[in-house]
């Protein structure tokens, strides 16, 4: 879509926010796929998660490719964001324990798994939460 005036942008932003709100109803798995994550094997983790979600027909889960989160010592990382806004950041997710993400954090909400680095990382810095 080509934005030709302010009205267009406003509409586009509304639909983008609506899209986000809709997708926020899913459990999101943010996989760190920057250079550092990829070097540590994050794309293998991604593939593993993608296959599992497909093969088990797990609904309400969305994989999101994101950049470096900064926790390079624990790459690859996956952050699980729940519909209620809570989140856990998981570190050292390799091919062999990738499915734990689904078992422990998608099917259940385990808050004391050993791979958890941090919980509930604050996200939006914008005062108005992205609205005008």
């Amino acid at each position, binding site marked *: 879509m080509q*934005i030709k005036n*302010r009205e267009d942008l406003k509409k586009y932003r509304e639909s*983008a926010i609506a899209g*986000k709100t809709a997708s926020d109803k899913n459990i999101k798995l*943010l996989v760190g796929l*920057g250079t550092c994550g*990829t070097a540590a094997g994050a794309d293998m983790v991604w593939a593993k998660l993608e296959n599992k979600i497909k093969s088990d027909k797990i609904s309400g889960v969305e994989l999101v490719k994101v*950049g470096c989160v900064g926790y390079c010592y624990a790459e690859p990382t996956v952050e699980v964001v729940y519909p209620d806004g809570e989140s856990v950041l998981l570190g050292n997710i390799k091919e062999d324990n990738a499915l734990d993400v689904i078992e422990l954090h998608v099917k259940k909400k385990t808050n004391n798994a050993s791979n958890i680095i941090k919980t509930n990382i604050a996200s939006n810095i*914008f005062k108005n939460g992205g609205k005008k």
Partner: protein
Amino acid sequence: MAQQIRIALRNCGKLDPEKIEQYIAQSGYLALEKALFDNKPEDILKLIIDSGLRGRGGGGFPTGIKWQAAAKQKSDEKFVICNADEGDPGAFMDRAVLEGDPHSVLEAMTIAGYCIGANKGIIYIRAEYPLAIERLNVAIDQAYKMGFLGKNIMGTAFSFDISIKLGAGAFVCGEETALIKSIEGKRGEPIVKPPFPAEKGLWMKPTIVNNVETYASVCPIIVNGLEWFRGVGTEKSPGTKVFALAGKINNVGLVEVPMGSTLREVVYEIGGGIKDGKEFKAVQTGGPSGGCITKESLDTPITYENLIQIGSMMGSGGMIVLDEDDCMVNIAKFYLEFTLDESCGKCTPCRVGNTRMFELLEDITEGRGTQLTITKLETLANTIKKASLCGLGQTAPNPVLSTMKYFKHEYEEHINNKKCRAKVCRELLTFEIVADKCVGCSLCARNCPVFCIHGEPKTPFVIDQKACIKCGSCVEKCNFDAITVS
């Protein structure tokens, strides 16, 4: 507990960098909208000046003042350059921003263009960052398709183009005048300032050069206002700084903290402390242009001024943590070797002076140092600092000066006692077999490359010290811990 506040990294790890709709849903292009529809260029310029935002690429020059200097120039053409050369060893802040949130840089460059009256933007990025380049290309494409770049942006009278220029990864090309030469297709050699790029830059036209992280900090200031921004950090250094933590630290990675946080907070609270419970020795900031910060300064608030005062500098944000196993003379030598390799060779103090300094350091680490070596190093360092043309040469002696200031005793031990306490400088080490522990298995002797270990089987072996080349392979081989290094 120290808190990270993410301004430049606000979207990194939060959204898909290849989906513009996710960026827009997170207040993306809201700053550009406000700038173009609600403000005149002067208004935005004033906002950036008043916000106190300072360059995150090293020098800490006030961004708004730089933009104003370029805005004042009358010219048919002006340029906005993003410096994504990122040549500091161990630094990857800019790469993370470009890979994780490319639109934040494009949007800010466009706003900068609007402020100074430029219609062209160029991102100078090293070819070693293929993923960042790919994501930038995707983002630029999207921005053109949606009308955030190109002719008559969002139907306004303002037009702005952005293109990418690949660099070959020379450290000196991160220096703004060398960078401009490189974009012009010439050798990446610095030139004398003034004139500053803001007056005569690319193709002799007014040009602003800013760092990736500087641009990444611009949009939130416009959206949230300057009180918000000034509420983070300190009076003279508002906002946040991204640091790349590396070296002997548990949590290697990127952190973004308010300016004025202390090193202790960064290293111990966020960085998780020193690896393997070893003892903290120093942190090198400012890369090859900076210096080390010692234990005594762990509680000094990190600001541009404070770091300079203790003989280091902010630099672009690389923080290398050193522990008891690091030899400070060797660290100084490492950085000097780097600058030596990267010197463009245009001026003598830097080209020849740094080579001589490197040789003097080698003398010290290899046991030939005397008091005179120290005096020579000091004289040379000061001459090089004063007489070099660009920042590379002017700052090259800093790691040496700073380690000499804070770790003089280590230099003296190397010179007077021929000892390296960190056991790094091999030439100064002595390998000895402890007779009580040696069972006479001869394994070490068979593996010594110069056959300088002698003895009869089942009796203690002895190392011929004169012939030993200190390779260390005997220590690795011995199964009985019978060989000591001192």
